[in-house]
């Protein structure tokens, strides 16, 4: 081959190479863009992991504080366990007060019974008084008969006998009134005893029912507390596992740093190659002869922008219904 032919062939090759020069700079730009996108994604994933870890930590911490499982007593708030104990204490006090009220009413019934016994004794005494009055009455009558037999000499005696009869009659009336009042008192006391007994009976039934309900509620609360403790313990374990998983993910995600460095090295090589080829083929390189091969494979807007192809298109994430 003549030197002229060699030169012609070399020029042809340079021209052909020049057509593909833009591919090299495009590859370099695409790689840089890819590296940036990977880093941006990894940063986003890291952010998410950090958010997950912080929320898990915060949830466990709040639940622990609420249940006071590891309570150091520094918090002024009462723990859930403390609330159950307080509640149980208050309910026991209420039940004790109810029982005390029952005891007081039982003692009141006993006293009313004692008063009734005393009333009966008073009634007995009144019956004796009535009997004495009746005897006085008979005595006064006999005195008057004897006074009549004595004639004028018994006149004064007759006046005394009439007066004794009159006084006796009055004492009989008073005795009857007192007796009536005592009967009324006994009736009232009987009613009070009945009311108190009924109240006492109902009170003890209610107190017993309340005690059972309170016991059940407290058991339920304690069961719930136990379950919450278990749940929290499980959450704490999950939290530790999550921390391990995130640790592993952090290690895994560092591939991006290595990949970015490798891409940076390839880009550097491509840029060097591009510069060398430009210096060799620069004389024949022209944009109107640039190859457009490979453009059809570009599907993403970023790729087309890097290649200098500007077309109307939708952005990532856009939705269009036809």
């Amino acid at each position: 081959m003549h030197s002229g032919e060699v030169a012609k062939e070399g020029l042809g090759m340079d021209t052909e190479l020049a057509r593909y020069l833009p591919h090299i700079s495009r590859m370099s730009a695409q790689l840089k863009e890819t590296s940036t996108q990977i880093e941006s994604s990894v940063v986003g994933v890291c952010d998410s992991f950090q958010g997950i870890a912080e929320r898990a930590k915060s949830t466990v911490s709040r639940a622990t504080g609420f249940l006071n499982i590891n309570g150091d007593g520094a918090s002024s708030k009462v723990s859930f366990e403390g609330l159950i104990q307080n509640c149980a204490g208050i309910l026991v006090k209420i039940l004790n007060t109810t029982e005390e009220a029952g005891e007081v009413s039982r003692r009141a019934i006993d006293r009313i019974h004692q008063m009734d016994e005393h009333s009966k004794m008073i009634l007995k005494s009144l019956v004796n008084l009535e009997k004495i009055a009746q005897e006085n009455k008979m005595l006064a009558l006999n005195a008057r008969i004897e006074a009549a037999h004595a004639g004028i000499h018994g006149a004064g005696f007759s006046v005394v006998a009439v007066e004794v009869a009159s006084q006796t009659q009055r004492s009989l009336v008073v005795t009857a009134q007192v007796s009536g009042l005592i009967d009324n008192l006994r009736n009232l006391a009987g009613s009070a005893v009945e009311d108190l007994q009924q109240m006492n009976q109902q009170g003890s039934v209610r107190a017993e029912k309340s005690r059972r309900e309170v016991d059940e509620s407290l058991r339920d609360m304690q069961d719930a507390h136990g379950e919450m403790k278990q749940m929290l313990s499980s959450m704490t374990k999950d939290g530790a596992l999550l921390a391990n998983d995130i640790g592993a993910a952090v290690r895994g995600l560092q591939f991006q740093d290595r990949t970015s460095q490798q891409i940076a090295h390839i880009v550097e090589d491509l840029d060097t190659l591009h510069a060398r080829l430009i210096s060799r083929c620069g004389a024949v390189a022209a944009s109107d002869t640039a190859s457009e091969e490979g453009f059809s494979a570009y599907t993403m807007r970023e790729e087309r922008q890097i290649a200098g192809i500007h077309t109307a298109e939708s952005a990532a994430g856009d939705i269009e219904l036809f």
Partner: protein
Amino acid sequence: MRRVLIVDDSVSMRQMVGYTLRQGGYEVIEAEHGADALNKLTGGTVDLIITDLNMPVMDGITLIQNVRKQPAMKSKPILMLTTEGLVAKKEQGKAAGATGWIIKPFDPEKLLQTVAKVLP
């Protein structure tokens, strides 16, 4: 709280190292290259520096050489955290004043153990 300065041009690496150290109870300051780190050090000293090797503007070795000139930072630990594993480079780092050399990717637990070991 102990303060650690992380120097890396990769945002994600700064984020991952930062997250690991914060979880370990350290206060973290970030710089994206050696010069940025030196600027941040003018505001006050730190207890530890963890730096990458290859960075724009100022690399890790130059950063260490400059940091060691500061009296307050003469004896503070400096760890290199890099993908570079060449023995010659390690020797260069050691000569500059690095306390240790960790090859990426790092294990968060091991990083914390190493940090605890170098911090007096």
